[in-house]
């Protein structure tokens, strides 16, 4: 497995925030705010369209493929997302076209018994019309037997 390196770019993307994504997020969690469901209600409340619920953007939804997993040293049979930090700068709405970039922001290692635990933080920026709209920091914890980490 590749050892993750700080600064590695995992991908760049441009994506339109679609209504279907927002509605599915609303339905699956049971969000109960009418502005999330009806664009007319949202507009009557002063929004240009349905607001994207906070937390509904995840970097891997936008990366073009899954090659980031290997480069970030993440394997689903031994990795877990253990921490997620988001900073919202600008409200996002359905129809917005965001650009983004994901990089490996931090890698730490520690020993736990016979294994090593590698924590990899993936930092993603989301921009709207060139302006920083949101920042996302997702930390994965991956358990290795000692010989797998060079």
């Amino acid at each position, binding site marked *: 497995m590749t050892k993750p390196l700080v600064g590695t770019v995992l991908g760049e993307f441009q994506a339109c925030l679609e209504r279907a994504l927002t509605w*599915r997020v609303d339905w699956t969690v049971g969000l109960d705010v009418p502005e999330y469901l009806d664009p007319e209600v949202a507009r009557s409340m002063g929004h240009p369209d349905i607001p994207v619920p906070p937390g509904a953007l995840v970097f891997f939804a936008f990366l073009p493929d899954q090659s980031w997993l290997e480069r970030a040293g993440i394997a689903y049979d*031994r990795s877990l997302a253990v921490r*997620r930090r988001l900073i919202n700068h600008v409200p996002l709405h359905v129809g917005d076209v965001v650009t983004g970039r994901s990089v490996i922001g931090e890698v730490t290692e520690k020993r736990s018994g016979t294994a090593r635990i590698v924590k990899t933080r993936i930092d993603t920026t989301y921009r709207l019309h060139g302006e920083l709209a949101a920042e996302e920091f997702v930390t994965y914890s991956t358990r290795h037997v000692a010989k797998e980490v060079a």
Partner: protein
Amino acid sequence: MTETPPFRTVVLDRERIAHFAEAMHDPNPMHRDPDFCRSVGLPGPIAPGGMVVVAACHAAVRVHGIESVREVDLSMRAPVHVGDVLECRLTRTGEQPHDGSIALEVVVIADGDRFCAEGTIVVDPKGACA
């Protein structure tokens, strides 16, 4: 001071967990493949962490407004299983007089008594993020 009421999700059944993972293009088989889950010691599919984050943020949205969430920092402590209902409890821990932002502690409990996540949320009741 606990903010009321806590937000409770719907029952996070297998269909909703799979739909959320699909909407996020989440390739992790832990969210949909029971055989894979058993192979790594889980009793069945678990919810994506994103569902927990969305639910925690919504607890703040319901109290402070739809564009109020400026920052959230959530650590996952235990998996969320099929059939769980999440309860997101907020406690106000501070206020910044210079900008009016409010710091909240958030705790996410599954199925009434299982501690799943904890962290902080900073809200700006005036909205429009930072």
